[in-house]
Structures are given as C-alpha cells and as structure tokens.
C-alpha cells in the first residue's frame, strides 16, 4: 500500500477492482465502510462475479476476466478527453511534460525494439530526451506532440467506449458511470483510492494492470494524499513482510536487486543499480544504493566483509543473466529432472501452484523433499496421491513439524507497511519449533560439515555471521530483528547538513534511520527499509502501541513502526502544491511552514520544489523526481496495453494483432498445453479463495468450524449457463481444461452473468482454490489441476484468474 488501512476512511471514492475485499480482508473492509459513513464515499466494485463485496458496494459492474487494462485504458481516455485531470499536479509532479525520444514508437500492439524470437524488448528507444546539462526536457504547456502527455493521450485515444465495451463485456452505460464517478476525484479537495489484490496480480498482464491504475491516480492527483493512493490489500500470509524480505527471486532484502552473473564485481553491480540524475531538484534517493547494499553485505559477513574483498560480494550466488527463477521455472526444471532436492517451507505447491498436475509429476523426480509446516499437506504426501504408486517413487520425504504463528514471537507486516511486534501466545505442541530455528540448526550443521570436511566454495558458509540464538541456544527473534535493522560497526559521527548538527554513535549502537547507513563498511543493515525499527539504544519501535492521532487522519504515528522511517503515506509531499501548501486543507497530511514540514513524516526534509535552490520534487525514489506516466521500467512497454490472457475466448485481440502479452515467457513442456478459443473449452474460468478458508486450505481444512461452513469444492455457475447445460443447483459436475479436471458441486447463481464480447455471448465460471485430496477425503481436489503454467511478464505471478474450461454434469 502507498497508504494504509485506516487511511481508506479519508477517501471520497473507493474503486475495488481486482479484489474481493469484504471476503478476503474483512477487517480492512470496515475502513471502506467508514469512508461511506464519514464522507458519503462512493464504493464501486468491478469484478467478473457478484461477491459479498459487491453486496456492500454502491454498485457492482461485471467485467470479463483479464480485461482490466482495456477498462482502465478507457478511463484514461475519458479523463483526458473530458479534461478531468488535475492539471497543476500532472504538470509539476509527473513526467507528462517530458519529451519522449525520437525513435520510440508503438505500432499494432508492439512498442519499438521488439524481438519476436526472444519475446523480449530492447528498451534503447524507450527514453526521455535530455538537454545539454543532462536534465530531462520539458514542455510545461503539454502541447508538444512528443511530450509524454500527448503520447499518452494518443495511445489511449484507441480505447473508445465501443471498443472497451466490446472487449470487457461491460455495458457503455456502466463504463461511463464508473469513469465519471471516479474521475470526479481529480480535484484538489477530493480523494479517490483503489483497492486491489490477487484479482489484478494473477494475470499475464498483472503488473501492467496496476500500472494503468497508477497512471489514472497520477492524472487525478490521487497519489501521496490522504484517502488516495494505490492500495494492495495483502493478507495474513504476511505477504507484505515476505516481499519486503525478498521472497521474490529477483530481489535482495529491501527490494535491492539480486546479483547476476555478468555483474561479477561489486563495482559493476553498484554502477548498474545506482541511478544518476543531473537535475539538482531531483533528490534521486536511490543514489544512496551503495550504502544500503554494502550495509546488507556487512550484515551477512560482518568483519569478514572488507573493502579489499568487495565486502564478500563474490561469495554470494549470482543469477544467470536473462533467466527467471520463479516457482513455475522451479517446477519446470524439476520436471526436467534438473532439481535434486526441495525445501518446501510453509507452502503446498501440489495444491497452490498452477498446472498442479505437472507440479505433482515434477515432485516425483526429486531425490529428497523436506517439508516444514504445521500440518501435513498434499505436497509432502505427493508420493501417495491420486494415481501415484508409492512403490515407484524414489523420493525421500522429511516432514519437520513447525510451530504456528501464535506459538512464536516476532514481527509481522501489514499491507500499510506497519511492522508490528507480536508475542508468543501459546507453547507449540510436541516437537514443533519455529522454522527460523530449523534454519539455524540446519545451517549450524552445514557450517560444521564445511569446517570439518571442506567443500566447494566454502567462504560464504564459513564466513557467514550466524549468531541468532539466545542464551538457551534457541532462535532469538529479537536478535534477528536487530540485525535486520542494522548496527554501527565503529564509532561514527553523523553530520546533519540541513540542521547543521553532528551526532556521535558508538560502535554496537543500532542505526536509527537508513539515512545513517554508510557505503564504507562502517554500518550493517540486513534490510535497509527496516533501519529505524529500533532506536539507537535498542528500543523496539515495532512494540509501540500509542493511539495518538495528532492529524486526525488516522496516521497513528506512535503505533508500531512503518517503513520507510515511520512514514504513513508515501510520496506525501505530493499532497501539497509546489509551495508546500496542502491541496486539500480539510485533510492536511503535510504542510511546509517556512522552515520545516509538519504532519506525517515527509518524503525527505527538503523544502518544496518552488524553492529552486534547495527544493526537491516530491517523488524522491524516482530518478527524475516525478511520477512516471511514461514507465520504461516495465518489460512489455512504457504504456500499458490490452492483451488477451494466454487462454481466452477470442482468436483476435480487438486492439491489435498481438493476441497475448508479447513479453510473457511461454512454457513449452509436454504438460504445458494451451487451448485458446477452443470449442472444447468454451467458458472463461477464474479461481479465488473464500472467507472461510485460507490459501490452499492446508491450514483451514483441518479446522472443523471452517470446514463445516465451506465443506467442499464448488463451482459458481450462472443460472443461464446452468439452464443451457441442464445443471441443477447442488448437482455434481466435472470441470475440465486441456490440462486436467476436477469434480465438484454446482452452485447455480444469478451472481455470474454472461458477457457480450465481440458480438458473442461469453460465459464465465469460477471455483475456489482452497481444497485438496488429502483432507477432507470427500472435499474435492485442487482447482490448479486446471490452470496453465504462465505468469506475468515482469513478476511471473501465475495467471490463475483467466483460462478456459468446460463444465458437464458428472
């Protein structure tokens, strides 16, 4: 979230799209309802299916799965055509006035630089022009035909109401209703926010779904303000915390970049990822990248990391250039027999991974499998799953019992980036221990073996700092957290140029803010964004529970610690005009009072940008200091474009000749079958969770009260389609894709209605992904036996939300 849960109450219009907030974030949903109570906020739900969320919204707009960019592209078109954008904001705080390089172009669904064989772009032409001083050129009138604003306008002029309606299946009337209502927030005293979740990320265009909304929010001046922003509703699995701490293969902690083979020296690596800006008004905060990265290396290797040995950079693993290592790649390689062993910690990929049939076959190729979990699950039991002969399986499987979340102390991060300390509520049963402790024990043993026997490339293992146990030899969450925060490794004098003060910190004190981190090896920090979660003297700010709310906006600055530096709304300087006066004085998030900012923790101490000498632009993490309407960081193009899902009902993309996202990786294994626009599989299918279960259901299916409430697999099917197929409510049906099939109970409903798409009627159905064969025995198997192995072009988040099936009476 750019903002946080309590802040949603400050909104005037809440677009819930790509989320079923009431069902999956029931506690968060109260803040959405509070916005209605306090401000009369409109709550709009755009979703293929009418859900429990729709029931509490002002209205529901059904949309065909996988067509969000078309829907939102139409909104960009509407905003520009009808002059609904917030001009002062767009001109000053976005790259709308910047001039796009002369060789950049877009034709028939492709941007310049496409290589069809590699399915990748060369981005050399995706650049913004700079003047002789190296500063981006601007046309503040936004009239230059090559300025970002005009290019954006031209790009989305193709997303006409007729076109969008025909792609999405949304009526023109509904499109206009949402567009006009939401774009009414493009004024200084109104705020609109967007709540999304897996409904946007689970697509081959997932990242671009979100970026399209980011463009809308920038156009309407909704970023950095109270009640605005783009809010990813993340869940109990601690998704926020796990991404902050690099669950994604391409990241190091704190969203630093993973090392790759071609960057074989620290110097090359830091040069590549440390952005440079010649614009004196751009803070370009990532110019501090070396401080964050070297401090990370110091946290890994402590005094073994020295300037002479590149702080241990050569010891760490490097990814092959241009190769992805997502979960889908992992199982793809495993299926090819190239993976020998797997640690499957706190997950159940035999149920939760796309194309689960392939995943289950891949597991058979392993020599060994280690599970760490609180319950047994379908992954650890794959060797005796449906259709598997245990005698023919060579894999040795270990299951280590783990303690559950309430059986251990530690930190947990919510979607609003609040990192909250939690305490142990109960002892774990039997031999169960925290997974952190398992990791310590395993690594202790590995270190011991290396010390005794030696081995290939021993340095990273022998030099690893590894003292995270308490006096009883147990995993010490506090010690780990302090290491993540970081330490001064020698006496250090910190000079604050703005305030003209100096502070001396002693060796061994904790780093109170990432602003104090150094690139010379004198500080450590396991994750720079968490620096400041402790005070220098060791007070754990994550334990703070103050309920003061000085701004009245629900920032609660004394409740827990929010990264970065306890800032509650990021990009908050954009809530003020260029002189630092709040655009909306009724919701004063921040104000420049002549010599300092008052309100939330500002995005940097500098004066507002009207001060040409000392002032800075508000988007300090962007190299150019402004929000990116033109976003060359994305792999499939600087402007989001509609492409059909890998498997859909159409043979031709109504927008261009490019049917599917040109930049996605196509898996070509024998089990990676695809059936686009096939008569055999005529219905669009989507998968989701339900309130009563959690993820693969591997934890909740064992809970009798929850299982009683949602006992077994079902398919929601519209009453019109059911009638056509002769399916009665409660009857058993078989749902098949080209990859597999499941049997389940039909839930015939008026909540799925057919779409009119390109002149034909398209039905959509949906199933929950919470069930698996292990337990309950009669509960049905995983819906991921149906889903394809394909993911977002940037993140490889799988496309669970749009593929094609058939439904028949069982």
């Amino acid at each position, binding site marked *: 979230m750019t903002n946080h849960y309590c802040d949603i109450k400050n909104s005037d219009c809440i677009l819930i799209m790509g989320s079923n907030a009431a*069902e999956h974030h*029931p506690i968060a949903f*109260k803040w959405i309802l509070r916005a209605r109570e306090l401000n009369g906020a409109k709550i709009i739900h755009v979703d293929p299916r009418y859900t429990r969320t729709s029931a509490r919204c002002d209205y529901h707009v059904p949309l065909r799965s996988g067509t969000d960019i078309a829907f939102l592209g139409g909104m960009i078109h509407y905003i520009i055509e009808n002059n609904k954008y917030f001009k002062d904001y767009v001109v000053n705080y976005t790259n709308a006035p910047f001039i796009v390089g002369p060789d950049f172009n877009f034709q028939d669904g492709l941007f310049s630089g496409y290589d069809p064989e590699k399915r990748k772009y060369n981005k050399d032409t995706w650049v913004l022009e700079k003047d002789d001083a190296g500063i981006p050129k601007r046309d503040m009138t936004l009239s230059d035909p090559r300025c970002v604003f005009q290019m954006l306008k031209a790009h989305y002029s193709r997303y006409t109401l007729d076109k969008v309606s025909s792609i999405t299946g949304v009526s023109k009337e509904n499109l206009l209703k949402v567009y006009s209502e939401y774009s009414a927030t493009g004024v200084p005293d109104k705020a609109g926010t967007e709540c999304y979740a897996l409904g946007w990320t689970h697509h081959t265009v997932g990242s671009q779904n979100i970026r399209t909304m980011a463009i809308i929010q920038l156009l309407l001046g909704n970023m950095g303000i109270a009640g605005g922003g783009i809010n990813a509703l993340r869940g109990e699995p601690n998704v926020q915390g796990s991404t902050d701490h690099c669950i994604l293969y391409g990241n190091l902690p704190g969203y630093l970049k993973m090392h790759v083979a071609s960057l074989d020296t620290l110097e090359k690596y830091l040069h590549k990822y440390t952005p440079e800006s010649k614009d004196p008004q751009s803070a370009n905060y990532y110019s501090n990248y070396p401080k964050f990265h070297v401090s990370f290396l110091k946290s890994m290797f402590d005094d073994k990391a020295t300037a002479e040995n590149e702080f241990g950079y050569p010891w760490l693993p490097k990814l092959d250039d241009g190769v992805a290592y997502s979960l889908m790649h992992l199982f793809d390689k495993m299926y090819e027999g190239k993976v020998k062993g797997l640690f499957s910690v706190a997950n159940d990929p035999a149920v939760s991974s796309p194309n689960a049939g392939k995943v289950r076959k891949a597991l058979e190729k392993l020599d060994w499998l280690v599970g760490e979990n609180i319950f047994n699950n379908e992954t650890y039991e794959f060797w005796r799953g449906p259709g598997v002969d245990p005698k023919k399986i060579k894999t040795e499987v270990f299951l280590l019992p783990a303690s559950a979340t309430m059986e251990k102390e530690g930190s947990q991060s919510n979607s609003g980036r609040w990192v909250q300390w939690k305490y142990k509520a109960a002892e774990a049963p039997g031999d169960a221990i925290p997974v952190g402790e398992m990791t310590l024990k395993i690594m202790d043993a590995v270190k011991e073996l290396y010390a005794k026997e030696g081995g290939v490339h021993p340095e990273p293992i022998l030099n690893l700092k590894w003292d995270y146990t308490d006096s009883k030899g147990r995993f010490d969450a506090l010690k780990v957290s302090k290491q993540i925060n970081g330490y001064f490794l020698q006496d250090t004098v910190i000079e604050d140029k703005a305030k003209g003060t100096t502070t001396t910190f002693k060796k061994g004190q904790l780093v109170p803010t990432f602003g104090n981190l150094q690139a010379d090896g004198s500080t450590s920090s396991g994750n720079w964004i968490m620096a400041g979660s402790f005070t220098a003297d060791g007070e754990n700010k994550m334990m703070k529970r103050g309920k003061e709310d000085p701004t009245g906006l629900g920032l609660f600055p004394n409740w827990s610690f929010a990264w970065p530096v306890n800032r509650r709304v990021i990009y908050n300087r954009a809530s003020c005009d260029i002189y630092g006066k709040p655009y909306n004085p009724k919701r004063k998030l921040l104000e420049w009072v002549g010599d300092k900012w008052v309100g939330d923790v500002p995005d940097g101490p500098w004066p507002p940008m009207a001060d040409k000498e000392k002032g800075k632009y508000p988007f300090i993490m962007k190299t150019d200091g402004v929000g990116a309407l033109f976003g060359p960081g994305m792999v499939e193009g600087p402007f989001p474009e509609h492409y059909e899902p890998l498997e859909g009902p159409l043979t031709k993309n109504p927008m261009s000749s490019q049917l599917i996202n040109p930049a996605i990786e196509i898996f070509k294994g024998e089990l990676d079958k695809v059936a686009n626009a096939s008569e055999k599989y005529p219905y669009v299918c989507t998968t989701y969770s339900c*309130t009563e279960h959690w993820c693969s259901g591997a934890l909740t299916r064992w809970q*009798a*009260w929850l299982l009683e*409430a949602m006992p077994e697999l079902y398919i929601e099917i519209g009453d019109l389609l059911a009638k056509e197929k002769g399916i009665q409510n409660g009857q058993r049906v078989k749902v098949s894709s080209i990859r597999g099939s499941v049997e389940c109970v039909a*839930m015939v409903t008026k909540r799925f209605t057919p779409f009119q798409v390109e002149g034909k009627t398209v039905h959509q159905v949906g199933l929950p992904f919470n069930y698996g064969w292990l337990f309950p025995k009669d509960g049905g198997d995983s819906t991921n036996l149906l889903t394809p192995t394909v993911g977002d072009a940037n993140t490889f988040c799988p496309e669970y939300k749009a593929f094609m099936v058939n439904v028949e009476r069982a």
Partner: protein
Amino acid sequence: MKTEFVKLIDTTLCTACRGCQVACKQWNEMPGLRTKQWGSYQNPPDLQWNTWTLIRFQEYAPKEGDFKWLFRKDGCMHCTDAACVKVCPSGALYHTEYGTVGLHHEKCIGCKYCISACPFDVPRYDRATDKVYKCDLCYTRLQGDQQPACVKSCPTGALTIGPKDAMIKKAYARVKELGGDANVYGDKFVGGTHVIYVLGEKAEVYEGLPKNPSVPVTTVLWKDILKPLSLLAAGGVVAGSFLHYIIHGPKLPDEDQGQDTKGGE
C-alpha cells in the same frame, strides 16, 4: 431487572463473513460437524443443535431495481413475550435480568414444546443429549460486562449491543439515513424482541422471517387459561394430554436435526 439489553443486527452492514457463526461455536464450545456443499454459501443449511446462529444467504432479483444478495444473521430473537418461556414446563427457559431468554440446560427435559411454540423457528433438539439448544445471547459474557461473542467478532459494526432504548433509537436513526424500504424489525411485536434488525428490504422479502410473528394462540390458551385451571383441577393429567395435542398439532419437530438436509437456494 438490570438494564434491558438489545442486540442490533444491521443487515446493511453485514458482509456475511460468518465470523459471528464461528465465534458463537467457539465461545459455546459447540462442535463443527461434517456438512455437504448443497449449492449455497449457507452452511450448515439451517440452525441446528450445534449452530445457534447462522448467516442466511438469499439471492434476490426484484422485478424492478438491481439484483441483491441478502445476508441475514438468524438466531434467537429473545422475545419479551416469549412463547418458549411460556410453554416450557420445566423452567429451563427463563427471562434473564437483561430481558433476554436464557436456558438452564440441566433443567431441560427434551419435551420440545418450545420448538413448536417459537414463532421464529429457533430452538433445536439434539437426540444424543435429549436436550434443546439455542442462543442465550452469551448470558455469562453479559454478566462479565462482555459483549456476546458474535458482537465481539463482527468486523464491520453490523452487530452492536447496548441498552434497549438507545439501540432502538439507533436502529430508527439508521433506517432514516438509509431511506427506501429500510425498516426496523423486532420492536413492535411479541412485546418487543431483544434482538432487532435493521433490514434493507421489506420484511416479507426475507425467507424464513415471519412478517407478523406472534405467540401461537394455543400457547396463549395453555399459559394464560388452561395451565392455571389445570393446577386447580385434580384431573391435571387430562389437561396435560390436551396440552400435548394442542401444542404439537400437525407440526412435529425434526428428530434428526444434527444433519439437516433441507434443500433450496
């Protein structure tokens, strides 16, 4: 009597998360039983001995206006003029000091008269224990100045509890704010219930919700006329037999409510 309490169920704020349904089982230590998916989110399909509160799901497509998915938390209404208390021969059902209807399980003789009498079809019989079960609005929690488990668990404020007058006032204010067909349900019949609804639609739209609930005539006959007479008369047995006839009439409670298989949407 202490302060009379009323629990307000605002159906227009309910997201049907069923936190209340589960919290009720947790606090009252009721087991979860194996159910079947029967084509509905509503499960168990009906109130049963181990399910004292239940979210009812109903798809409603009015002739005019938008489709709606209605959620109604069902359970004991805690009537002032409570038919169950009137007919209970053993004193198991009683009015608490909060005006709610409590249940002394040790006194329940499993006669099921309350089941027949209840205008809201709430009490449920369990053959294994030969007793009747229903919500007691978390009597022991109220005694400990705690909210009922369902109210405590509600994330959106759809469930609230407080002194009777204040809650009724709140309900009417909410209905005024909502406008349209929104209405207050519960304060105008059976002497006023201690669970009242803010309904988004007219009462008759909701399946299983009686439009004008009342204490059955037969119950009134027994409680207010025949019972006093029978106590006087030596032939009490005769009166008792007559009572059994008039109470049960043609309606017999289901003996096997543990696994109700009632169909429908």
